[in-house]
């Protein structure tokens, strides 16, 4: 029982942690959305409706979790043209971007 409570608490804390870590300063948010529109957009479409890369609309991304999407941004997808954005985007910025995408943002 205690073990379960600990596990639940850990999960909840992890949840809070990720919310906190997804906070990005306003100016950086603007930069990230510019990057999303113009640089991600060169493959995924400026309106994120797809191109050589898949669409990044909320509907298209519905099957995927925030963690998976953030990891894809950071590490890329080997075997596809998706490059790792780690040099330019931090992990918590990637989580924030993934959240925006899941919420259906159109930059």
């Amino acid at each position, binding site marked *: 029982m205690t073990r379960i409570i600990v596990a639940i608490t850990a999960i909840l804390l992890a949840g809070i942690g990720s919310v906190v870590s997804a906070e990005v300063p306003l100016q950086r948010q603007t930069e990230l959305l510019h990057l999303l*529109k*113009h*640089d991600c*957009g*060169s*493959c995924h*479409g*400026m*309106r994120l*409706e*797809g*191109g*050589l890369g898949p669409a990044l609309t909320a509907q298209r991304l519905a099957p995927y979790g925030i963690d998976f999407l953030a990891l894809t941004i950071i590490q*890329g997808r080997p075997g596809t*043209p998706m*490059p*790792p954005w780690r*040099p*330019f985007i931090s992990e918590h910025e990637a989580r924030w971007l993934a959240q925006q995408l899941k919420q259906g943002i159109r930059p």
Partner: protein
Amino acid sequence: MRLIRYLLSALLLYSGQASADCLTRGTGDMGIVIERADGSVQVLDRRAHKSLFRIEGLGDLSHASAVYSPDERYAYIFGRDGGLTRIDILCGSITHRIVQGGNSIGGAISQDGNLIAVSNYEPGGVKIFSASDLSLVADIPSTPVNSEKRSKTVGLVDATDQRFVFSLYDTGETWIVDMTDPANPAIQKHTQIGQLPYDGLITRDGRYYIAGLFGQDGLALLDLWHPEQGTRLILKDYGKGEQKLPVYKMPHLEGWAMAGNRAFLPGVGHHQVLVVERGEWNPVTKIPVHGQPVFVMARPDGRQIWVNFAFPDNDTIQVIDTESLQVIKTLKPGKGALHMEFAPRGEEVWISIRDKNELQVYDTRSLELIHTLPAANPSGIFFTSRAHTTGL
């Protein structure tokens, strides 16, 4: 009473003229620039360095490109959202507009100027339209990838003998479509050309079609004088043993530069311009440059090569001398230097600087900036001289 009628008819005549405010001039020194974020196009006078019109309502123009009618009066603009728009550059107006697909990547005009072909990612395939009214002439679906999806088509160009050539990204093919009889397109398919062709080009003389491959080293070459020989892999050892860098922007092959007997092309995943001998297609050398090249374009006389770069180096342009194979100038025109277009005789080059909302004009002899024009997030620049060049 008669006077009033006269005044009324004069007024009508005047307003009629005012609404049809078309220019009376030649178009040989004109062009357009795509304003990607606004879905608009500016019509340019490239000799006067002046904007003549701004035309709005063209949809999603990220990655948009354009071709010209043989009389250089109409431009056909291919939007990302499947939009195909015909504009009249003398009147600054849209004459026809259709949305022909869900997601598109460029197009071409036939040798005789009567057909417009558009390459589609979604639904995968090529559609061909009448150049005069954009009515559908032929629909050529690509190879299915699974039950729901067909291969994306890329690298669509016009070729001699009324043909179009394009490649299939997912299935690794190059198709030649002969439109001599528009009612019966004759399709020749070359399969297994290589993995993930991402773009294609045709040499200016229309002889060679070359597809860049993302999924493997090398390029797939098709000799259009001898299509029966099929494609062959060239430069397959290029980059071997070297660590490839992540690619943040796919290079473009459209501007593949030929200078004398040498071709200059972007090294995918490398900070290099590759120099190749035409004919045998053997590598001559690699020129180290500032970043990963996107467009590698020759000044029309072949004396200089101008190169722009992928993110995060897209604030830089370098100029290479084709005799010494050295970088002779590094320019910092601003962030988002996306596209370059030379005057047909090469005295000037126009560069679009996306994040500065600016077009910059450089003198190619002094390599100095000589003029700037405002433009909203400009990308592709297209001068009317393209009307007379195979593959453009």
